[in-house]
């Protein structure tokens, strides 16, 4: 029961559930999911915390469950964040190469990335990710690693994801308040895409839509790099709320109706069908028309896809999605949703499978866990990087350090 350095934990505080996934890197660098813990969330609206204490309780449940299942002690997590305040855009950084021989060094690369991050953000915002896309050396496009190349002018395209600092801090504070370290904060949409897409799909161009409880996050890959990210603060909760309003039933009942009878397609069989629903005591409560239920759901989901399509069209990316669209998150469970998305986006749509990691089969198959698994995967990249960096001497020191009692 010691915190082996190869343990990576992803924690997602979602609007409907809190989920912790434990992954283990074995010696060959292969990631394996060994534990999952989840708890129902209270106190989160549209992906953002509104009741910190209730959320803390949920996090504790999820972490304890995951610890028990994986039989490890969790000390640090990769934390997923989302919310309507998160935005993404592309930016370019420029850096003149000043060394005498014009050879591009590691420092030049660091500098150019730093320049690309120096952007004019609203005062309260902070950069969440600055993801490198391509380098340009003297205007020559498509360089992936410029170190060692010759050139006078180094440029880099980055995709910057930024959000409101205080709102991001809220989630971090809750986790830190429980004596857990936060290794890094990751945008949920990015995490989901890491779990769902293979390298080949990223190369071809793909759109990942994570329909969560409170928000819908989407990420576009093309040519192997992230081109676009977005958050729509509309999710499954909105569907439930629409149903509660339209069918005049309580929220809890609406949620149940959505899960049991919901679908993203109005088929002939439900037309004119009604259903009696009863209260907890068995008393008749209301009669709902199944066609209305479907129509309300379809209109909401259709709108979500339309808004995403509009956004991507404006960014000019719809033509580049040759691998198609991948759906994940709890919303991907809605029957026929892929068909609806296909109609709106006019692209092949599939449900995302988290086949990029191995481990507990039951977990991996569920679309809700895509984000948390993606967080672990994100952690594993960082982990590999960290591992690769120490020099031989430091490694020796590490080995001896482990043997010697502290």
């Amino acid at each position, binding site marked *: 029961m010691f915190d082996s350095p190869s343990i990576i934990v992803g924690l997602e505080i979602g609007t409907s559930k809190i989920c912790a996934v434990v992954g283990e890197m074995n010696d060959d660098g292969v990631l394996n999911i060994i534990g999952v813990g989840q708890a129902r969330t209270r106190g989160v609206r549209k992906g953002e915390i509104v009741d910190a204490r209730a959320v803390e309780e949920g996090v504790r449940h999820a972490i304890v469950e995951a610890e028990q299942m994986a039989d490890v002690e969790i000390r640090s997590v990769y934390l997923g964040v989302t919310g*309507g305040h998160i935005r993404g855009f592309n930016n370019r950084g420029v850096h003149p190469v000043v060394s005498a021989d014009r050879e591009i060094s590691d420092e030049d690369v660091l500098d150019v990335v730093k320049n690309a991050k120096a952007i004019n953000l609203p005062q309260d915002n902070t950069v969440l990710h600055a993801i490198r896309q391509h380098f340009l050396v003297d205007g020559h496009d498509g360089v992936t690693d410029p170190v060692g190349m010759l050139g006078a002018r180094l440029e880099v395209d980055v995709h910057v994801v930024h959000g409101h600092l205080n709102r991001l801090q809220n989630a971090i504070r809750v986790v830190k308040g429980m004596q857990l370290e936060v290794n890094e904060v990751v945008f949920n949409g990015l995490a989901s895409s890491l779990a769902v897409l293979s390298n080949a799909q990223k190369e071809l161009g793909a759109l990942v839509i994570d329909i969560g409880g409170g928000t819908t996050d989407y990420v576009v890959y093309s040519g192997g790099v992230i081109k676009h990210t977005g958050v729509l*603060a509309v999710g499954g909760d909105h569907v439930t*709320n629409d149903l509660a309003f339209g069918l005049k039933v309580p929220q809890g009942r609406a949620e149940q109706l959505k899960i049991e009878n919901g679908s993203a397609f109005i088929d002939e069989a439900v037309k004119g069908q009604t259903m009696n629903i009863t209260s907890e005591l068995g008393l008749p409560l209301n009669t709902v028309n199944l066609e209305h239920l479907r129509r309300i759901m379809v209109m*909401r989901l259709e709108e979500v896809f339309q808004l995403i399509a509009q956004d991507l069209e404006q960014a000019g990316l719809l033509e580049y999605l040759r691998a198609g669209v991948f759906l994940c998150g709890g919303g991907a469970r809605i029957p026929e949703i892929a068909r609806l998305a296909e109609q709106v986006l006019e692209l092949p749509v599939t449900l995302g499978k988290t086949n990029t990691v191995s481990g507990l089969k039951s977990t991996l198959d569920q679309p809700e866990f895509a984000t948390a698994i993606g967080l672990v995967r994100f952690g594993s990249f960082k982990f590999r990087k960290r591992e690769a960096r120490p020099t031989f001497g430091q490694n020796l020191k590490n080995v001896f350090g482990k043997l010697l009692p502290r």
Partner: protein
Amino acid sequence: MDSEIISQPLSAGETKKRSVTIFGVGTAGITMAGQMAAEDFTGAKFVAVNTDNSVTAAGAEMIHLESKMLRGLGAGGDPERGCELAEENFDRLKTACAGAEVVFLVTGLGGGTGTGVSPVLARAARESGALVLAFVTLPFACEGNQRERHARQGLEQLKTVADGVICLPHQKAAKLLEEHAGFADAFRASAHLLIEGVRGVWRLLMYRGLIEIHFEELCALLRAGHGESCFATVESAGTTRARDAIEKLPAHPLLDGGQALTEAETVLVSLLGGPDLSMADVNRVMADLNEHCPKARIIMGAAVAESFHDRLAVTIIATGRQPRTSAKPAPGKNGKPALTPDAPGFDTELLHPTKPERPSSRHVPPAPALSVEQREQILAQQTGKRGPVRKAGPRMKQITLPLDIVNKGRFDKSEPTIHKGEDLDLPTYVRRGVALN
């Protein structure tokens, strides 16, 4: 419209000779009319109509409706009395309207005079051959439901008789004010907004347009969209005037943060600028508006006036989706509006006077295997059953509720998700006006 531009481009800019009479009815109306008379509404004739002697307006002819019955006490907050009084003096009102091509009626609804007299005055004006456009304010919510009910009732009556009604709820103007603003300031702010609206329409009428919006067109628009119509006028000056106007428009309090534009069905835009009004300015304003109201039919007008050098005034009148199919009370004898027994918003609105022609979906064709007689029998049964039921008076019809009543449920207290002026927290089917039945 287009031929006029070509035929007389140089004469554009001059004011048209139109005789306009502006009536201020009731205390509120007279106050507003008085303010207008003091401003630059040159060429208009002002008439103040009241039932008591409480206020007077400088520069306005006074019509004092008096009756022995009231002993000089005025209508006393009772619209019925105001209405009776106006009927008694119908001929006087008609004479006052004589000669006017267009009559503006400015009043505050909810009291006795404004609510009672205005519909009668509107009718008098129409009979004397003028086009009638009413600008009315609705009372603050805090003024009590009695006044609210009167105001609604008066508004419905006005809508049946006037060519167009533009209505400004005081409550919307209240949003403009700071918390500690004086009570009188609230009325003043509201009056100011209304006057701005009148000014916008006034300009529309008085300045010859490069692209003309006919007054009839405006009236047709206001008549057709008997949902709430809202208006906004913004003015800007300087080199960045187009951009300033664009920025001011969605922020206008009467447009609900641009939401009114998004939901509008028809939007009338009137641009008035100086001789230096450039194509780029017009383009910019129109492009922005098109973006704001993607669903709306946009009617555009533009005019040039010498006095507007380096300035740009944009007037917008947006009519929303019609919330109900036919809520108008049928006009009674000689065009007099039949009084609605209840306040509108109750049962009468649910009644659908014409029965829908749609065949009932319960009609089941008889099976082909049956004999001819049996088939006819089944058909007769079905029609027989349906017949009397459908003839039995007006059918209850479910109406679409206006948007502001929609409860946002669990998102009530969270930050709203606004996307291009649309509140995504509201159910999609409500925003798109899809009826569930």
